Every structure is written in C-alpha cells, then in structure tokens.
C-alpha cells in the first residue's frame, strides 16, 4: 500500500503540466509537446513495478503458472 507512489505520480503530472505552460508562453511549443510525452513516460515507468508486484502476488497466491 505505497501511498507515496500515488503522490509521486500526481507530482510528475502537475510538474509536466506547469512546464508545458511555461514552454508554451515562451513560444517553445515543440518542447512543450516533448515535456508532455516525457511526463507520460515517467508515469508509466512508475506503474510498471507495481504491476509486476501484482502479477507476482497473483502467481504466489493462485499458483497460476
């Protein structure tokens, strides 16, 4: 029950949005898009270990494969 994982993902999302706005205001629009994509990738990279832990728990409890 890692509570801080949720807060980290929220923080990454908010920071990406703020950077996006800053870059848009200083007319670096293409970098704004890059920041959005980077933020998304970081969020996904955080989710993958949780998914792996889920599948390991299911494998241990149910003896699936």
């Amino acid at each position, binding site marked *: 029950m890692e509570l801080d994982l949720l807060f980290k993902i929220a923080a990454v999302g908010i920071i*990406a949005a703020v950077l996006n706005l800053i870059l848009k205001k200083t007319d670096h629009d293409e970098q704004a898009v890059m920041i959005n994509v980077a933020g998304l990738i970081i969020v996904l990279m955080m989710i993958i270990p949780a998914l792996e832990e889920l599948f390991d728990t299911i494998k241990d409890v149910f003896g699936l494969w």
Partner: protein
Amino acid sequence: MNVVAVCGFGILAAVLCVIVRRINPESALGISVCAGVLILIAAVGMLSPSIDAMNELSEQAGLDADIVKVLFKALAVCYITTLSADCARDAGETALGSKLEFAGRAAVTVISLPVFMSLAQLVTDLLQ
C-alpha cells in the same frame, strides 16, 4: 492489510484523480491505474489464507487436486482481465475493454477444458 486502510487509500486516490484530472488528464489515468493495481495487490494478499483453507477442505473432501487448481486459475484470470478491462474503460476505450473481457473468457474456457473432458468421461462411463 485491513479493510479500513484499503478504503481510505481508495478515497484518497479518487480525490487525487479529480484534482489532477483538471491539470493533466493523462496522469489522472495513471493515478487511477496505479491505485487500482495497489488495491488489487492488497485484496489478493487478503485472499491467500482463504485459498489455503479451501485447499485443505478440498483435500479432506477427497476432491482431486487439479479441479481445485483449475478453479483458482480461472479466478486469477478473471482478476487480471477485470483489472485491465476496467482500466481500458476508464481511459474511454469501451471497445477495447469488451475485447479484453472476451479474451479473458476465452482464456477461462481453455483453462476449464480438462474439467469438461473428465465430466464427459464420467458420463460415458455411467451410460455404459
């Protein structure tokens, strides 16, 4: 992991999703997926003692082990497919969600094939 902690965690995740959805919609989806996965980990963790108890009961009742194994495999497949189908529906992809559920049903039928075979075998033996 008691239920109170899990419920509090769920409420907090929902509130966090609402806050972040206005600022950055994609990471709101990330938060809901991550919260779903963590809650499911806690739920499966809670389930393990009952699984062991069912195993012991089925041994005492004389059921052979692989039927109970098939039961648990189907349960695990349902767990995973519901998680992914609901995450897809959360992201607005209802068509993807229903396809995931169809794949889950196919997997369950494949897993439960041997049980059907043994049932058919039993019936033919009885009829002879």
